């Protein structure tokens, strides 16, 4: 064997870049040449990574890719976090994709379900973010990665601005395995504010004709929070945050947790909880956190991504948010997910469906969404070794056996018993268990968070402490007890509920010192987006669809 045979990938990469030839000037490609360049750098059989998560999208490169035909591009193994753009769906419709491995398909969930039905969606697996990033280093290493950045300098160094997100997690495995990294940028400048990706790891750059798409994903208008959500937030604050002394946490993106954030400076302050709970956050810069930050509740916030409109606010609050030397906000999806997995006392989020065993899912027969990051945070990290007050306290309730860790992470599902349109949240069996979905996923039911990992379920009826249940039957009875007037709830036996309540496993609002008649929107620190802007002293710039002044 000769030495040359030991670096075949490197030789192959050089050959592909050579074929690009004059279509690029150095690393720089003009937008018109992008389809031609893509044809020359991607080969049949490649693992191709297209950057795009639930916020940031390499949308120009995606659209250029989708403009090609099957004769130009076929037999592709697509790996990407989120299938969110119509262009992504085109790749499947044109038959270019041999296999896809992904995390989430939010806005295209219906289109994905249709492709599955038409057998045009050859899925390997649906992952969590970190799970997919992990596989980029194992068996799904990209041959070519199409990524997005805010700015490039003349050497090809990249600045990622507030939305670093998953770019490093894609670039590193690609660049260090002789793959090709092709970046679309909003602009090319002489000097970058800071270097997030060194030019050394970037092969090609195009200045896109329009700025990359950024979704305002975490903006929740306080005006849409209901009295019922305020009630649930009060119950959660007293029955969980206060009880366990939750110091570090992650919040989902729903209105339930937005209500909690907005209650901290009012109801939380009244309970004397400031400085005792909610100090360290792994969460995106949520506008609804502004009042709590301004009131001095929050020590630090690390984020997986940015949020449109929060740039000036986060830059001005570098004591709370992670910022670069240039002073602007920094995020990192892989590291944020890692922090949310190992470093926090509590994950609290919502779901569309919860079954009687506490399994939850957002998948239905007509809408396949996937996971994103919630399962990484909403699980018991088996590798955790460091104790915290909350971790030990839940652990003690769970009565661990001789072969299990002494503590548990709080994994809380906070749901109203009914979704909009009187659709029950609680079901005997998840829609995700549909045979056609399971078949497409090689026998796996797409469960967002497993019942075994969930420690508490909060509804408007009260709290079910699943960690403290001693049997499957007991867990089911606890879930029925807080499932209200859904068919699942109506099957509860009064005697079971009373016994569980006596043991503190089921708690109603009055059991944790909350009077439902107190639950009112007037408790929220801000009742609308304008209120948030006022709290921010004018530093928050909400997206136009939220502005009515």
């Amino acid at each position, binding site marked *: 064997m000769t030495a040359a045979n030991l670096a075949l990938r490197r030789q192959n990469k050089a050959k592909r870049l050579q074929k690009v030839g004059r279509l690029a000037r150095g690393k720089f490609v003009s937008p018109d040449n992008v389809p031609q360049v893509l044809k020359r750098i991607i080969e049949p059989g490649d693992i191709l990574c297209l950057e795009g998560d639930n916020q940031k999208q390499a949308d120009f490169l995606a659209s250029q890719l989708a403009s090609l035909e099957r004769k130009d591009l076929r037999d592709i193994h697509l790996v990407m976090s989120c299938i969110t753009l119509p262009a992504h769906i085109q790749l499947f419709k044109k038959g270019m994709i041999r296999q896809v491995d992904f995390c989430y398909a939010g806005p295209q969930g219906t289109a994905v379900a249709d492709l599955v039905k038409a057998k045009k969606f050859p899925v390997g697996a649906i992952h969590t973010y970190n799970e997919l990033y992990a596989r980029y280093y194992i068996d799904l290493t990209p041959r070519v990665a199409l990524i997005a950045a805010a700015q490039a300098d003349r050497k090809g160094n990249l600045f990622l601005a507030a939305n670093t997100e998953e770019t490093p997690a894609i670039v590193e495995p690609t660049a260090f395995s002789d793959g090709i990294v092709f970046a679309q940028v909003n602009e090319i400048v002489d000097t970058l504010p800071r270097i997030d990706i060194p030019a050394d790891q970037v092969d090609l750059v195009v200045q896109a004709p329009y700025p990359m798409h950024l979704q305002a994903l975490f903006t929740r208008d306080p005006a849409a929070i209901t009295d019922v959500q305020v009630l649930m937030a009060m119950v959660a604050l007293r029955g969980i945050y206060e009880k366990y002394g939750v110091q570090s946490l992650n919040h989902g993106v729903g209105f339930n947790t937005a209500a909690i954030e907005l209650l901290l400076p009012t109801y939380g302050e009244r309970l004397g909880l400031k400085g005792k709970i909610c100090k360290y956050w792994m969460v995106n810069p949520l506008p609804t956190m502004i009042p709590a930050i301004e009131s001095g509740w929050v020590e630090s916030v690390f984020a997986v991504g940015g949020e449109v409109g929060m740039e000036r606010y986060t830059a001005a609050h570098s004591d709370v948010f992670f910022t670069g030397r240039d002073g602007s906000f920094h995020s990192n999806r892989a590291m944020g997910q890692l922090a949310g997995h190992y470093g926090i006392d509590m994950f609290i989020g919502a779901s569309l469906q919860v079954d009687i065993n506490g399994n939850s899912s957002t998948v239905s027969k007509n809408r396949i969404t996937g996971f994103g990051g919630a399962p990484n945070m909403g699980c018991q990290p088996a590798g955790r070794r460091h104790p915290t007050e909350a971790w030990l306290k839940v652990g003690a309730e769970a009565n661990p056996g001789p072969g299990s860790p002494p503590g548990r992470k709080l994994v809380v599902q906070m749901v109203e018993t009914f979704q909009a349109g009187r659709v029950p949240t609680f079901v005997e069996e998840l829609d995700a268990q549909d045979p056609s979905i399971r078949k497409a996923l090689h026998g796996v039911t797409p469960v967002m968070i497993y019942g075994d990992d969930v420690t508490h379920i909060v509804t408007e009826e009260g709290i079910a402490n699943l960690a403290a249940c001693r049997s499957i039957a007991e867990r089911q009875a606890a879930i029925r007890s807080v499932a209200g007037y859904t068919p699942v709830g109506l099957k509860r036996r009064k005697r079971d509920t009373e016994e569980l309540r006596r043991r503190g496993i089921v708690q109603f609002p009055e059991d944790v010192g909350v009077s439902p008649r107190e639950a009112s929107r*007037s408790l929220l620190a801000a009742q609308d987006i304008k209120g948030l802007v006022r709290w921010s002293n004018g530093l928050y710039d909400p997206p136009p669809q939220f502005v009515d002044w």
Partner: protein
Amino acid sequence: MTRGPLFHEQTARQRIAALVDPGSFDELLPPPERITSPYLAQLGIPVSFDDGVVIGHAKIGGRKVYLAAQVGQFVGGAVGEIHGAKLTGLFKAAARDRTPCIVIVESGGVRLHEGSAGEIAIAETMRAIFECRAKKVPTIAVICSDIGAYGGMGILSTCCDFRVMTEHGRLGISGPIVIEKWMGKKAYDSSNRALVWKTSGGKTKYLLGDADSLVLDDAGAIREAISKLLGKSSAVSLKAVKARQAELAKRLKRFGQTEDADAVWKGMGVRDIEAASLASGPEFAAMAKREK
């Protein structure tokens, strides 16, 4: 920075309770009388005990007033036959008893399901309002929610002596969606909330003189504004009407061609548009005055 309930978020009954002297409200045709819309029932639409308007008399600062509060959540606060008859009767009673009458408006206008009856009721109510004004009995419209006062209720509001508004309130005749439908999205994009409020919101209406006071979104502030107006009336005279018409002609000439919503604010002396946008009602009123 915690505060009491926001007025625009309260229900009609809560608003009345928050505005009047404690325990002084006496409801006319209260819910147990069950005077509900026969038309809605026939159409299979849920009815409401008060048909979308709560009426009665009460005291504000010891002074007797007649009072109506529309329920915006119930078919958009729209005026049907019973709803309209309650308003008409209330203003007639106000004229008869020479007692000030306040209407807290939250309505898109006539209820389409009972069109003619609603139209007639609004016309009759306007007549009763002018009867009050002829007798110098103060009439006040309070417009404080984003449903606002539109259609017939927009006209009715401007028939009253005075209008108290908050930054949340909106006042107009055709609603934003109707304007967009007839003039096109290019001329008026009803989904552009900033544009809608810049053209029909409380701040703009105050600048143009259509609102007499611009107050905080709070029952105490609204009560104070009402109290100040209760002793006054603005007579309807040929001179006053002509003066108002001249003002309107001037406004049309000045702003009729502009496509920039900010131009009206600038033209009326507001310099720092961004600061004025974020300012509360009274802060805005102070800025407008100072910078004039």
